[in-house]
């Protein structure tokens, strides 16, 4: 490959500006590791672009920064300083809920929600945020993050973590239930696909009776699925059922549980 031609082709600028296709971006990343002159050209363009954009700019409205800090940063800081006994309290009050709503934006993938300490809910949520954000592809998840925010950022939405009965430290999923619209959403964590002839099925539990909320397939971590609506629920269960689902849950094959 003629590197000089490559550098002058406009491809570097295309990649820096976020205009390149995935294949072009991959080729670019593979090449600049081999050729320092490509990195040099990329840096020169980046710095010139940055200097030009920072030189003359119009400030956004003052309230923008205030809103961001309020919705993301402040609640987390408050949460860390809460007393330990409050951590164990179920997440019901408005203040804590608001924090959870904010944190849930970060918890898009839920995925590698490992290594919790049992009694430190806030610290483990923070850990999850970091781990989760690690999984995000920043440019393609803008919509997903905002979609999740739209769903969970309402006072009417109740939220619970679904854990494996035999391993309470593994977050299998999050369940979101809107007490007004009755919509139910499932945000999958890091869960394995069942064998070919089996399928996961979600159940709401109301006064001890299971109600079928539908079957689902695991496509990827961080998958957000809208399930069937439910008027009221005390808890939710995921069971492994024959493909196509069952009329009643096979409780022996319970995969995850979460109380609302």
């Amino acid at each position: 490959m003629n590197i000089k031609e490559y550098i002058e082709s406009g491809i570097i600028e295309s990649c820096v500006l976020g205009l390149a296709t995935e294949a072009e971006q991959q080729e670019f990343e593979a090449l600049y590791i081999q050729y320092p002159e490509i990195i040099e050209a990329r840096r020169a363009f980046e710095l010139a672009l940055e200097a030009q954009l920072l030189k003359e700019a119009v400030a956004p409205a003052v309230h923008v920064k205030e809103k961001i800090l309020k919705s993301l940063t402040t609640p987390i800081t408050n949460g860390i300083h809460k007393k330990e006994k409050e951590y164990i309290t179920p997440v019901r009050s408005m203040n804590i809920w608001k924090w959870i709503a904010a944190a849930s934006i970060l918890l898009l993938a839920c995925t590698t929600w490992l290594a919790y300490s049992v009694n430190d809910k806030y610290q483990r949520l923070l850990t999850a945020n970091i781990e989760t954000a690690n999984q995000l592809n920043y440019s393609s998840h803008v919509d997903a993050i905002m979609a999740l925010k739209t769903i969970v950022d309402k006072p009417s939405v109740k939220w619970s973590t679904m854990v494996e009965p035999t391993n309470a430290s593994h977050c299998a999923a999050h369940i979101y239930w809107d007490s007004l619209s009755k919509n139910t959403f499932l945000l999958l964590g890091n869960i394995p696909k069942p064998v070919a002839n089996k399928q996961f099925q979600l159940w709401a539990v109301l006064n001890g009776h299971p109600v079928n909320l539908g079957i689902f397939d695991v496509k990827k971590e961080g998958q957000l699925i809208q399930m069937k609506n439910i008027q009221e629920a005390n808890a939710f269960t995921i069971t492994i059922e024959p493909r196509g689902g069952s009329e009643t849950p096979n409780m022996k094959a319970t995969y995850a549980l979460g109380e609302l």
Partner: protein
Amino acid sequence: MDLKIPYEEGELIALLKQKDQRAFNILYDKYAPAIYTIVLQIVKNKEIGNNVVQKAFMVIWCTVVKYEPAKGNLFIWMLQIARKAAIDEIKSPNYEKTLKQVSMTGKEVLPSLTERGIDDFGFKKITNNLEQEQKTLIELHYYKGFTSDQIAETLSIPEDTAKTRIRTALSELRNLLCKK
């Protein structure tokens, strides 16, 4: 708050990855105007622009742990996020409706603090110096989010030709920027 950055960029990034609020303040104060300017050049409305900047910085805050300095500098990474959010916005079904509503309430659409228009700032100021055809290509590709095949269709030219011309325009853009 002191707006001077007391950190090297590496230190700032390390603190951001630890979710340090001071670092976020510094990051925002330094880069938000540049980000807002480019967002405004895409969405062409102050109110929508403010919302997009808010959305973009939330994503930046959420995903900074994933940011890899080896893949590009911090500002460029943020710029890509913000542009993507702005392009998503203008492509959303609500965009035209919001634009119409805002103009009906008589709110000012673009900043008028100076006599210059928003397109006389930053990146657009440079792209305005391109030849007309190249300017159109950058306008469609960067500011409207058209892919090369959509551009080919819009301009009634073959896709390969569109691709080549876009690249030439980008290369020329680099020359204009780096010459300054």
